[in-house]
């Protein structure tokens, strides 16, 4: 078809029909304020990823941007490039608000191979750290978050409510895993508590299990269609209402069905204005 050639009448009607479809396309319902925050956050994470992949993984140095802690070691390489490339599901939560940057390795007791560690740089300058799950691992995750980030993480349209008995939410994959907290980095946790950023469930995580207490359930579901793992955690507000946070680790290996993983709280969300840069863990240093 040529721009200067009029189409036959039937073609004109056909093309008008196509344009009519465009005219009646649905309008965007995006929250532009949230979208703008997300855009800036992801741009920051993109920069952090570019810097961190070299700085944190090779030299073990801190990210060259304010407010990010260096966890030492290597890792996270698998997440950051995928996120930088805009890969859906790579570090993205159900509503796509996550941004991931590599931070380093978090050692886990009993493991011979390191886990990939990633961090989510949030709008308020805090850093959410988690580690990847491995199909051959019996230990799973290092994760913590401050109360202030629960709101940021909340994705009510995609995260189902957590039942009081801690059973997995419906429709979140066929396999679910309960995580038992085995050990907490007390020194780090003390720092976090001092900064006032510890979440209630993390406080309770000092006990040997969090799965039996309503409000302190942490579990993961493994999607049947994609090799990703979604971690749900729930905090408890003072008035008893529940926060549901959702964290999709993405790009992870599928876990064998029925595996009960264990959790080690080894790294934490840190308020970067109050906590000095700290190397939390390294290989074999847990």
């Amino acid at each position, binding site marked *: 078809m040529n721009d200067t050639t009029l189409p036959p009448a039937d073609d004109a009607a056909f093309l008008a029909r196509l344009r009519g479809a*465009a005219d009646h396309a649905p309008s965007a319902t995006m*929250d*532009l304020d949230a979208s703008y925050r997300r855009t800036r956050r992801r741009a920051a994470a993109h920069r952090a990823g570019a810097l961190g992949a070299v700085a944190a993984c090779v030299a073990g140095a801190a990210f060259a941007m304010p407010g990010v802690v260096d966890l030492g070691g290597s890792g996270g390489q698998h997440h950051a490039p995928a996120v930088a490339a805009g890969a859906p599901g790579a570090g993205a939560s159900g509503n796509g608000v996550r941004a991931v940057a590599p931070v380093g390795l978090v050692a886990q007791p009993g493991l011979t191979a390191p886990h990939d560690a990633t961090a989510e740089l949030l709008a308020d300058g805090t850093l959410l750290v988690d580690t990847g799950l491995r199909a051959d691992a019996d230990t799973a995750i290092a994760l913590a978050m401050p109360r202030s980030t629960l709101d940021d993480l909340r994705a009510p349209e995609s995260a189902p409510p957590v039942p009081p008995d801690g059973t997995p939410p419906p429709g979140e994959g066929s396999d679910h895993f309960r995580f038992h907290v085995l050990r907490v980095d007390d020194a780090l946790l003390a720092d976090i508590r001092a900064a006032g950023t510890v979440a209630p469930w993390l406080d309770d995580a000092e006990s040997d299990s969090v799965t039996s207490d309503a409000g302190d359930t942490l579990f993961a579901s493994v999607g049947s269609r994609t090799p990703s793992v979604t971690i749900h955690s729930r905090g408890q507000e003072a008035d008893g209402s529940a926060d549901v946070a959702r964290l999709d680790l993405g790009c992870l290996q599928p876990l064998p069905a029925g595996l009960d993983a264990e959790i080690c709280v080894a790294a934490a969300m840190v308020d970067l204005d109050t906590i000095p840069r700290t190397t939390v863990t390294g290989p074999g240093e847990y």
Partner: protein
Amino acid sequence: MSAASTHAALTAGSPGTDPSSRTSSQGGDVRVEVVGTTRAEEFSAFMRSAVDPLHRTAYLLCGDRHRAEELVQQTFERTYRHWRTAREGDPLVYARRILANLRIDTWRRTRREVLGDHTDPAADLAAPAGAPPPRAGTAEVDDRDVVVRALLTLPLRQRRVVVLRHLLDLTEAEVAEELGMPLGTVKSTASRALARLRTTLETGSDR
């Protein structure tokens, strides 16, 4: 609408709250002035003016409102990272170029929550037998749905060309530039795509 020259009035304020955001129209061309004083102000205003045209494009390309919003979000992020370059020309054209070249179809294979499931876009293009006649005012939306589902049966390359050329009414030269294709390829691709689309729609309406 001539999408090639769409531009946004860039003013201060957060993107969702400033009612002064506008897209001005002059003789069919939508133009924008870059008047913000900071990158944040400029980009916020750009988002306000660009979200609807970008969402429309994304929706036509992917046929899913939720995925369309994800694509628009990705487009904003990439545009933001290259804002200095984008603002030198028409930022909407720059953003739409990003959007059109995103991986439109990978989402359903990777995302866990498929909120709108079109497992077989070609199926059920026609109204089911015995279905009540559409209510007044809904025929256009119904037809849009049929057309969009027919679009989804096209290979992505053909879909991109048809959407930009025939649904968004860009010129062939603009399509060629935005998709990075030779002009002749745009023409031949559009021709094949339209023929296929026509067949799909006619087959659907014969059911």
